[in-house]
């Protein structure tokens, strides 16, 4: 535990927690992230990162505000975009077609700036289920979905999805019959991917907001399918 002295980490974390709203309803199957606590003394890498940042700030290469602003974007902005975009595709067939045709252009239409990400949307059908991975690092459409979950970055996910996707899906509680094609996408170069899941029965007449609620991050990466909860 950090002690009572003025502690950079504690002060920053305090300010951050008070700004954190966490009002997004994570679905059950999304395994909402366990709050990342900085317990105990900082690791060598935490110290290294902090030291690099301070040196660069002192040299005028970056400012603390720039880094803080970026943190806020990753926390408060990016993670909520994907659900909205795909919910629109569910309700608007012409938009869906444009999203499939050119993911980045379609997002721009909705005022979603994907920055450097080049998005390819892939659609699930009764015949095809799509699943995303990056075996070489952890490429992910961050400007659309926020930061990837820890499992996406794990060695197990990265190595196994490409050769045993169905076994990995099963670990997420997703089972697909053999007459459905599993189509794995390894994001190994310039493109980034998002899955357009199939819209489940029982969602007729739902608003985009309500639809976005069941389009959880996990469904957009393709490890689970959207569920209607009563």
């Amino acid at each position: 535990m950090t002690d009572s002295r003025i502690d950079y980490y504690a002060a920053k974390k305090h300010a951050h927690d008070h700004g954190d709203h966490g009002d997004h309803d994570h679905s059950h199957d999304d395994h909402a992230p366990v709050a990342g606590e900085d317990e105990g003394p900082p690791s060598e890498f935490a110290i290294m990162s902090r030291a690099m940042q301070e040196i660069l700030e002192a040299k005028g290469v970056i400012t603390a505000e720039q880094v803080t602003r970026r943190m806020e974007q990753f926390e408060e902005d990016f993670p909520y975009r994907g659900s909205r975009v795909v919910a629109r595709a569910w309700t608007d067939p012409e938009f869906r077609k444009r999203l499939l045709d050119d993911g980045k252009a379609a997002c721009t239409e909705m005022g979603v700036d994907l920055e450097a990400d080049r998005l390819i949307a892939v659609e699930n059908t009764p015949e095809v289920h799509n699943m995303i991975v990056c075996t070489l690092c952890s490429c992910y459409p961050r400007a659309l979905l926020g930061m990837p979950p820890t499992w996406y970055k794990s060695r197990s996910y990265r190595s196994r999805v490409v050769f045993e996707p169905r076994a990995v899906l099963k670990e997420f509680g997703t089972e697909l019959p053999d007459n459905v094609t599993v189509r794995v996408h390894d994001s190994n170069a310039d493109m980034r991917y998002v899955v357009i899941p199939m819209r489940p029965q029982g969602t007729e007449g739902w608003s985009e907001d309500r639809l976005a609620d069941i389009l959880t991050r996990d469904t957009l990466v393709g490890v689970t399918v959207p569920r209607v909860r009563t």
Partner: protein
Amino acid sequence: MTMAGAKAKLEAPNGVDEMAEKHPNRGPQDIGGRKAGPVDVVDHGMKFWERQANALRSTLSGKGIVKRDELRRAAEDLRDYSKLQYFEITTSALRTLMIEKGYMTEQELKAKMDEVRARFDVPDEMESPLKQKAAQP
């Protein structure tokens, strides 16, 4: 587990071609198809320092100071790649590039790290654990 046993665990179970599988130029990041255990399907989120480290990386990348491809290359070249966690890799790769590109020297970074570490009274690895214990009230 012996070294040979540990290595055997990394072989792909799928009969892929031996040359690709075991080639000396295959980097530690090139793990598609390698044998691995079950996926921990819980998202453990990010610690504060990791979020800040990510934002630092992203800020530098956005300014064109480091390129994404340079970060990847620096990561892949890390001797300890296979032993490090994701943000430890990111941070180490960033360190490589900051020094490579002349934004800081190793000495500068070490000095600043010593300064940062001192704020938290984190004992350095030279200090005896017995001494630390004795110093506690």
